[in-house]
């Protein structure tokens, strides 16, 4: 079969799958699967026979994981979703992250309340990862606006980076056995101490295989004008690490706002990154004019990409997992909005077109070439 570009689109009313031939001129849409149930995380696992996964967070009947082995023509529930041991006292409220593990059927899952689970059988059974789920800080983390969620899981050899809102960035260097808060340089705007050990509202973290040690973070910015204890905290929203997440520094200069949710790295250039700056009060783009901003020098400077996007009167939000980029030679960006539009940014975001304009509110967009 010729290569296909596959999109998974997690929405308030189920997961959709769109696919296209490589030129990406048009996409065919299927779904919703798990109809009527919110989907906050999806995964396109391209190892071996591709498997698609989606969380299905049913407010009535609890959390499920959906799996497709036919490229999203159908989905079925796995045998079990992650669940806390009864004696733990916590109950699963949402599933925020699904990532591939090292073994062929290994999966990692970040949940709300912030905890980590692992599966060795493609999602049919799950074990709590105690090193972070029972961390001494875990009962001190506080929920952000979206809940107390573990939304980012990044594996890099024996290192595991986790993003928790609001908990901050946690790093394991022993394959996930133990974790420690690693937030040097990561600011917080909602506490008197601008640089606490933990408790930051990290929104998303990204890395690139070809840039060892480099990580990018979209943190909860928007605190430049704070006048309370600890003083203003400008530019704490977009950050970079060059030492495997041990320390972080701002790269927000030049952006119209340091607040935002997603951060995405170009698949073939670890210095090229994309963010979508939002006004902190409305969670929409400044002036009602949506734009993705790109840096081609690891955050030293930024340029605005908006050709084809609305020029005014657009007040949608793009959530933390609702932007992705494919891995074709000239990659395309994709983002989904809380008003149900799915946009494609062709030529690395130079030209934007709306693929679908009336989907349910979009939480999550993932893309893969299979």
């Amino acid at each position, binding site marked *: 079969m010729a290569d296909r570009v596959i999109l998974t689109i997690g929405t308030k009313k189920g997961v959709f799958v769109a696919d296209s031939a490589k030129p990406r001129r048009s996409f065919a849409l299927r779904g919703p699967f798990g109809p009527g149930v919110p989907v906050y995380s999806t995964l396109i696992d391209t190892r071996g026979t591709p498997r698609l996964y989606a969380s299905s967070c049913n*407010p*009535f*009947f*609890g959390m499920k994981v959906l799996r497709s082995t036919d490229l999203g023509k159908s989905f079925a529930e796995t045998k079990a979703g992650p669940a*806390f*041991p*009864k004696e*733990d006292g916590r*109950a699963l409220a949402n599933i925020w992250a699904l990532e591939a593990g090292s073994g062929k059927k290994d999966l990692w899952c970040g949940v709300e309340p912030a905890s980590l689970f692992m599966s060795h059988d493609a999602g049919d059974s799950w074990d709590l990862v105690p090193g972070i789920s029972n961390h001494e800080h875990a009962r001190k983390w506080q929920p952000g606006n979206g809940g107390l969620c573990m939304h980012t899981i990044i594996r890099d050899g024996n290192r595991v980076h986790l993003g928790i809102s609001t908990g901050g960035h946690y790093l394991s260097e022993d394959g996930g056995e133990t974790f420690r808060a690693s937030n040097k340089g990561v600011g917080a705007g909602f506490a008197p101490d601008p640089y606490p050990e933990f408790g930051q509202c990290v929104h998303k973290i990204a890395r690139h295989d070809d840039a060892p040690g480099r990580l990018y973070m979209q943190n909860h910015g928007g605190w430049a004008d704070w006048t309370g204890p600890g003083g203003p905290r400008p530019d704490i929203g977009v950050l970079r690490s060059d030492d495997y997440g041990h320390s972080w520094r701002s790269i927000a200069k030049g952006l119209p706002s340091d607040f935002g949710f997603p951060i995405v790295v170009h698949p073939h250039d670890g210095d090229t990154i994309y963010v979508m700056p939002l006004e902190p009060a409305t969670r929409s783009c400044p002036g009602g004019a949506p734009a993705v901003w790109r840096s081609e020098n690891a955050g030293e400077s930024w340029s605005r990409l908006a050709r084809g996007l609305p020029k005014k009167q657009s007040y949608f939000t793009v959530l933390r997992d609702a932007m992705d980029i494919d891995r074709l030679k000239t990659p395309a960006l994709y983002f989904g909005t809380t008003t149900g539009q799915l946009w494609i940014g062709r030529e690395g975001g130079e030209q934007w077109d709306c693929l679908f304009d009336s989907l349910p509110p979009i939480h999550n967009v993932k893309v893969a070439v299979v």
Partner: protein
Amino acid sequence: MGPTPTITIHVPGPLRRYCAGAAQLSISAHTVRIVLEDLQRSQSVLYCNICDETGKVRPHLNVFVNSDNVRDLDGVDTTLKPGDVVTILPAVSGG
């Protein structure tokens, strides 16, 4: 305490696939709590849809004994008599 009453559980449509399509289940139990404990043993997947990991009935579900919500009775300690019907229903939600 007298003989254990046999009651009927009415299973809502979305949950029937977790109990082989059954619309009703018959269980002998003195209280709603024992009904749930029985389901945990005999219909574990169905049970996980009704109760969370802590054993509490999920917050957006209502359990009725005949026409009364157990929240207005004695909760899961509500006693049962022969022929009672226990109905599990999603709460009204909109938006």
